[in-house]
């Protein structure tokens, strides 16, 4: 049945394409969740960012691999180590016809801190910015608080709004509520806003006055479909043209269908196990006479070596993962070349290491894990527990729904927990700074370091790298820091999730490291 129908579909589609190669076409995307707001400066959240990148554009953007490239700013140079001059592209207009000027940039960056009620303010990306001024109509000077090499990475997340359209009576100009209705939602991007029904379709249409290459689509419909099986069914039925996050169970079905296909990679989010290395009396550990064996490097190495990463990637993750030897993916800036590929599993060596550390009889530990937050998270934890138990570390898994898991983690109720980190900067320094730098609340260092790993040498390298402007020198420092942390088994990387998209067979999409679904990058194959 489905075969004849797919045939019919294919020939009809071919006919349509042949008759009118430039016919108006809609692109319907089944997304895994909807944006919490259309205000591009309300909430730092992937679904919000990908929509705002269709309507708005930042000064610079990341390509699919995470490298920085010019967008609204054609070029930039440093006037001093803390002063960046950005030259705006000529001839760019907003979708309402007004030209882009330096004033719009100043307005947009200035608005960030004024948006109220935000669950995660975009000040995350302006915290290093001391001032923004328009030198002339097409030049913007951004002053940073100190030498800060990652400014362009932050700017990627700050789309430029139209000053004329987004000004208003409130301190922030147009309010979030107004922008949600599309009022003042004027950008320079390839699409413009049409309508948004919460929980249902968000409709965009092509910006006819777009300065860059026109997208292949007249209209884009982004439809939140939280249930992955529903997304797959809708793709197979031809109701949608593209879906985010193909569930492991549907891979075979979609690959076997003549009208659909899957694109995946590059590896992105890292899944790891963090270990409490601060407290002696760590919860969930027993059989150690009140000591915390995780403080001993040999024990950590044993736990690292006990994990069969290949096995987890192929069997538990169904191939949608790449074994990790570092917190940074191999193509990430600053990842140590020595740790791109993890050392193979070696349970015998692991048992021997335990013996050397004085834990030949093993001990008991509880491994905390979220359930349903990351792909197959609890199953990965169960598998690791089995592998640890095999070398004598009797491991029980405590898997909980995400809100409960995070509460426990923040209260430091786990001595070992499985978690994940998504790096948006394309540079390993931010990951190491959050996960492994010594916890310091006031300095904002080690903010995700619930294992409280602390190594002054690592802190010094990271701090040095964070103010080194020269890319080569910074890369070297970061590689050194990464190698230091990984040789110390400060944290145990397991794998990188490989994001995937399901597509109609005649469409192309370059999978992105930031996992965004950008409708302007979806093209029809020739």
């Amino acid at each position, binding site marked *: 049945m489905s075969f004849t129908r797919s045939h019919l579909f294919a020939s009809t589609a071919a006919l349509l394409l042949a008759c009118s190669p430039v016919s108006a076409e809609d692109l319907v995307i089944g997304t895994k969740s909807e944006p919490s707001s259309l205000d591009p400066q309300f909430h730092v959240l992937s679904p919000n960012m990908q929509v705002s990148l269709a309507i708005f554009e930042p000064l610079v953007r990341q390509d699919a691999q995470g490298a920085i490239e010019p967008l609204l700013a054609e070029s930039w140079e440093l006037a001093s180590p803390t002063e960046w001059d950005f030259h705006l592209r000529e001839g760019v207009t907003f979708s309402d016809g007004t030209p882009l000027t330096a004033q719009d940039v100043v307005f947009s960056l200035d608005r960030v801190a004024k948006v109220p009620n935000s669950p*995660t303010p975009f000040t995350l990306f302006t915290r290093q910015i001391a001032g923004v001024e328009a030198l002339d109509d097409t030049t913007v000077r951004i002053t940073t608080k100190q030498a800060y090499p990652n400014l362009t990475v932050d700017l990627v997340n700050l789309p430029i709004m139209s000053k004329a359209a987004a000004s208003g009576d409130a301190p922030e100009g147009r309010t979030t509520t107004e922008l949600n209705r599309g009022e003042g939602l004027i950008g320079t991007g390839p699409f413009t806003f049409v309508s948004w029904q919460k929980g249902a379709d968000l409709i965009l249409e092509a910006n006819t006055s777009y300065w860059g290459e026109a997208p292949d689509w007249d209209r884009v419909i982004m439809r939140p479909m939280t249930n992955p099986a529903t997304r797959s069914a809708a793709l197979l039925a031809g109701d949608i043209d593209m879906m985010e996050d193909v569930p492991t169970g549907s891979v075979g079905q979609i690959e076997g269908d003549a009208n659909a296909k899957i694109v995946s990679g590059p590896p992105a989010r890292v899944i790891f196990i963090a270990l409490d290395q601060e407290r002696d009396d760590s919860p969930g550990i027993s059989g150690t006479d009140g000591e915390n064996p995780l403080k001993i490097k040999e024990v950590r190495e044993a736990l690292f070596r006990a994990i069969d990463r290949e096995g987890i990637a192929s069997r538990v993750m169904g191939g949608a993962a790449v074994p990790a030897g570092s917190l940074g993916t191999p193509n990430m800036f600053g990842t140590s070349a020595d740790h791109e590929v993890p050392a193979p599993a070696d349970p015998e060596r692991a048992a021997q290491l335990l013996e050397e550390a004085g834990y030949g009889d093993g001990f008991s530990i509880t491994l905390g894990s979220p359930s349903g937050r990351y792909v197959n998270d609890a199953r990965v934890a169960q598998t690791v527990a089995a592998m640890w138990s095999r070398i004598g570390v009797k491991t029980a898994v405590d898997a909980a729904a995400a809100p409960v898991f995070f509460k426990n983690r923040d209260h430091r109720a786990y001595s070992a927990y499985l978690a994940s980190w998504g790096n948006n900067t394309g540079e390993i320094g931010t990951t190491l700074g959050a996960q492994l730098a010594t916890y310091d609340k006031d300095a*904002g260092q080690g903010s995700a370091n619930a294992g409280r790993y602390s190594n002054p040498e690592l802190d010094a390298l990271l701090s040095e790298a964070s103010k080194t402007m020269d890319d080569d020198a910074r890369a070297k420092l970061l590689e050194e820091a990464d190698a230091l942390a990984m040789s110390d088994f400060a944290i145990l990387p397991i794998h990188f999730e490989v994001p995937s998209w399901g597509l109609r067979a005649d469409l192309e999409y370059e999978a992105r490291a930031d996992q965004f679904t950008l409708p302007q990058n979806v093209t029809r194959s020739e």
Partner: protein
Amino acid sequence: MSAFVINRLLQAFFVLLVMSVLVFVGIYLVGDPISMLVSPEATDLERDAVRESFGLDRPIFVQYITFLGSALQGDFGRSFLTGEPALQLILERMPATVELVGFAMFFSVVIGVPLGIIAGLRPEATFSKVIMTGSIFGFSLPTFWVGMVLIMLFAVQLGILPTSGRGETVQVGPIELSILTLDGLRHLILPALTLGLTKASLIIRVTRAATREIQAMDYIKFARAKGLSSSRILRVHLLKNVLIPIITVAGLEFGQALAFAVVTETVFSWPGMGKLLIDSILTLDRPVVVAYVLIMVLFLVLLNLVIDLLYMVIDPSSREKVRD
């Protein structure tokens, strides 16, 4: 009569108060909204700033008293996640759910009552046994599974109905309805069928039981002895009395489905309130969860009131009870 209504409303107020405390404390015990909402990249200081802006840094009872104060003035607070008023978020989603549940209930009554009466009148017939066995399947199959099977069959294999979403809608006053367009109706069929299947099964069984019970009543025997036609007995004497338990069950089921149509809504990506509730619980978006539960409690109390009032219309003997 009016004393009865006032009494009911007072009870409702008390229930609302208790529910608000339970939900408030419940969410507080589950976890910290900040760890769900704030990007992991934020530093602890940035986290604290958000916590403060949401008032979550204050003791839980202070938060509750503040909430109660504004709730009494009709302000349930703003959603942590979207920054929009919680009540508005829920009311925006309500028409879609009411439409789905209404259609599903209509379907289940239209199918369930006749089948139930047939099964009740001829309990030994093969056809009746088929109906009863079918109804067991109807309420024991999980909704999630039924929904997926219907999608795979009608949307993926046969390609005659859409998989999900609400389709084309028509603006009627402030609300959007999909029931008025052909495309909207096509989108409505599968989710309504999924949701209605369990309800229909229940109604079949209730109707059958009521029919059998009433059939044995003296007034039916008397009507028969009087020589009334069996169709008249059915319409006037039997149906009217069978309706009493059906209204109770259908009413309760309607309320239940309205508040918790979440599985069907998730499977079919139906933009209703149920999905909003589950998403809000998962992100610990307390203002939305509290407002949702309170609205639903109020709604269920009112629904029961309406059911009781309907009894009085249908069943004269219950009028006497209220007067006492």
